């Protein structure tokens, strides 16, 4: 077990730069998620840590050890792959034993540790089965045991759940979280699914175009996204353009659709064009506020999501807890107010959160 330090990593394929300059420290024992849309470089970075991709620049450390030139087989990693990568010609037990055999451990040790980890994943009775008789979820559990049994310094997981169906995915992510906590291993987890990332991670790094935009706990990313990209990528949000103006000794947001709200904490920030991120639950109904016409509604069980039009053709998503006696109809006009303390204000490029992040 050790922390991972990456300094100024560069990844290039020919003339194409995938990762221009990336530095990050992954704390010991944490479950650290690389989250981003496909093609953002998250898997590339993971495979650089694993040793399957060449490193064009920068330094990679596990604890104090620099690993840039180490063969994958010498890095002491456990890796779990999207397609499980189970050895199809070996039984479940032999799959789990494989790494231990490479380490030339005594036979008894191999046996007892294999048993221990098969128990950990609740698969002991499948020991002699061939993998083609297992379901996807079971195969992925075997892959997890196989990666953990060698007691690696770090565990790397490359979209481990994306080949599973929705229900199993939720079950497995809980299992992974439990086992990771129990073993306490430094884990780097790659996913494009923000909900999965939120549920499972200690820390999330949101990536785009080979750059880490923000690292934080799930709730930090949700409530104080560093950029508009993070705000949009994590959860749902409405982005409304406007202006920050000084008026009556205070600072106001003047939305382009024609509404004004006073804001606290912006007194030291100059007047400028802004983009405001308001999450669907940050609109609440009130007595006398912004007039909104209901365009459409989606019933989602716990909540109902509305598409509403605010005056001059601006459409927003609004979410409310559902009730059995549904009173709102399409075409109805309601009054909304904005939970001012929760919203985020970005500069006109969406690249800086004017309130700052941590």
């Amino acid at each position, binding site marked *: 077990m050790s922390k991972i330090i990456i300094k100024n990593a560069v990844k290039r394929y020919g003339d194409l730069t995938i990762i221009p300059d990336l530095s990050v420290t992954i704390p010991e024992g944490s479950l650290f998620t690389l989250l981003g849309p496909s093609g953002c470089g998250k898997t590339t970075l993971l495979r650089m840590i*694993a*040793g*399957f991709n060449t490193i064009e620049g920068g330094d990679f450390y596990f604890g104090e050890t620099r690993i840039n*030139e180490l*063969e*994958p*087989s*010498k*890095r*002491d*990693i*456990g*890796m779990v*792959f*999207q*397609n499980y*990568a*189970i*050895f*199809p*010609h070996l039984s479940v037990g032999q799959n789990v034993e*494989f*790494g231990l055999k*490479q*380490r030339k451990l005594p036979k008894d040790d191999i046996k007892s540790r294999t048993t221990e980890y098969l128990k950990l994943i609740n698969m002991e009775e499948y020991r002699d089965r061939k993998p083609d008789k297992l379901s996807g979820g079971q195969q992925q559990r075997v*892959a997890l045991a*196989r*990666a953990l049994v*060698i007691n690696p310094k770090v565990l*790397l997981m490359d979209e481990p759940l994306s080949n599973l169906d929705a229900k199993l995915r939720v079950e497995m992510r809980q299992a992974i979280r439990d086992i990771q906590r129990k073993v306490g291993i430094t884990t780097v987890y790659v996913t494009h699914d923000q909900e999965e990332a939120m549920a499972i991670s200690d820390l999330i790094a949101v990536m785009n175009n080979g750059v880490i935009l923000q690292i934080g706990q799930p709730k930090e990313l949700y409530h104080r996204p560093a950029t508009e990209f993070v705000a949009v990528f994590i959860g749902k949000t409405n982005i409304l353009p406007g202006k920050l103006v000084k008026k009556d000794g205070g600072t106001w947001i003047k939305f382009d659709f024609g509404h004004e709200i006073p804001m606290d904490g912006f007194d030291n920030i100059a007047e400028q064009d802004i983009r405001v991120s308001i999450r669907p639950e940050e609109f609440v109904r009130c007595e006398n506020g912004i007039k909104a016409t209901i365009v459409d509604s989606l019933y989602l069980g716990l909540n109902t999501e509305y598409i509403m039009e605010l005056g001059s053709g601006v459409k927003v998503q609004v979410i409310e807890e559902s009730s059995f006696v549904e009173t709102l109809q399409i075409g109805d006009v309601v009054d909304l107010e904005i939970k001012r303390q929760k919203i985020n204000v970005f500069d006109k490029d969406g690249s800086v959160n004017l309130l700052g992040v941590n």
Partner: protein
Amino acid sequence: MNRTKFKWNIWYTSAVVMLLFYLLFLIYPLGAIFQEAVYVRGEFSLAHFTRFFSHSYFLGALSNSFQVSAVVTLYSVALGTFLAYLFTTFKFKGKKYLQILLIIASMSAPFIGAYSWILLLGRNGAITNVLTNIFGFPPFNIYGFFGITFVMTLQLFPLIFLFVNGAFRNIDKSVLEASENLGCVGIKKFFQVLLPLLTPTILAGALLVFMRTFSDFGTPMLIGEGFRTFPVLIFTQFVGEVMVNQGFAAALSVIAVVIALVVFLIQKIVAFKFAFSMSSLNPIQPKEVKGIGKVLIYVFVYSSVFIAILPQVYVAYTSFRNTRGMVFHPGYSLGSYIEAFNRMGNAITNTISLSFYATVLIVIVSVFVSYLTVRRRNFLSSTIDTFSMIPFIVPGTVLGIALISAFNTGVFGSGWFRITGTALIMVISLALRSLPYTIRSSVAALQQMSVSVEEAAESLGSSRLNTFFKITIPMMASGIISGAILSWITILGELSTSILLYNVRTRTMTVAIYVEVLRGNFGIAAALATILNVLTIVLLFAFMKVSKTKTVSI
């Protein structure tokens, strides 16, 4: 750092070894005949080529070959496709067994079929005698153009059948349902939907049939009777008794290679235009037929399979008859077998040992070549990959002449490595000719295997070499083995290269059969052919067991 260097070495070394193998045994020999073709008495000259193109006698052989190949391809495609259509669309009994019989028919050596048909339909053939003597048919014969096309079509339509039958299984039945739903049914459906979907497969199969017919040497030699085809011309120019001209034979070989290449490229270009990929979740289900249709299907299917397999059966039958020379006497015995073992015993052991060594060589080369081309794709490995496919289109006779020219006086005439007449050159030529089957099959197996499985092994502390032997090879195993068995079967039936390279110590069964047929020792020939067929069938069943299929695809 040390490790990086080591891994670089092992793959680099194997790539270089493979490259040298192909350079020495394929590219250099082909270069040697090219040189021989354009140098007359030490001077550059195109005299051989002008001679060829100015004599209708030579051009005639070429045109004969084209005609035979075109007609055989046409008939084989029509018959094979139609049979595959019946197999896919309709229910009838015995499908599994019929299919196995067709595979056996396609896998046996063509010239054995030719020989057997001579016994059946030749001048004094069993069927000929019945028809002319009892039913008063006018005398007829199957020698010449008709005989060659007849024998080759029966030999090769099963290949098309196997190809197209495989392609049918990739067509999802929803495609046909969609076509019916849009009002395209019956014969229109066949031509507008099914046939286009089968086109890439048919083209690939047609190329194979065309090239096999074009380069086949044994069949026209036996049943041609004066009907000269191109490989026969090359052979007689090279070793003939009357007018041997090795330089001219070399020039003919060059022409043959060029033709093969052109046909191959045309097929590639055409196939590329029709290329698409299909995957089927619900293959077409055969449906019940009733009444006259059912009768017709049974008659057609069973009789075509019966005619395809008849030569093997008849050869086996005659092998148990009492024979003296070309004449069959009443009564049955194992006399032919005893004589075959006594006089041709070493041909049997040679076939087994040479084909075994060749197959071992094939497996080793295939494992490395397939790994290099799939996992370490670069200029070097692509070059090796291309080289490895050349023997697939170069006629066997040409390869034989090339190897003799190249090694008769040692490499570049230096006296070093004079392997002509040795078992080594037999093993290498047999391996070269059959390598493409195992390489393709290993490549396919490796391509299906996700890289992440090997990465998983490495992440668990396994070195690259260890991963290669413990993970990669075991996972490829069924692909390698089934390919190797196919290669082995092809080696067993190989004649056109062996006939040039053999000597008394290294002659194989196919050579012995061919020679005995020419000498008129029909009993020995039949006994050897039957043994060869049994070996082929045993290997075929091994193949089906390993690959877990009831079919063969090439």
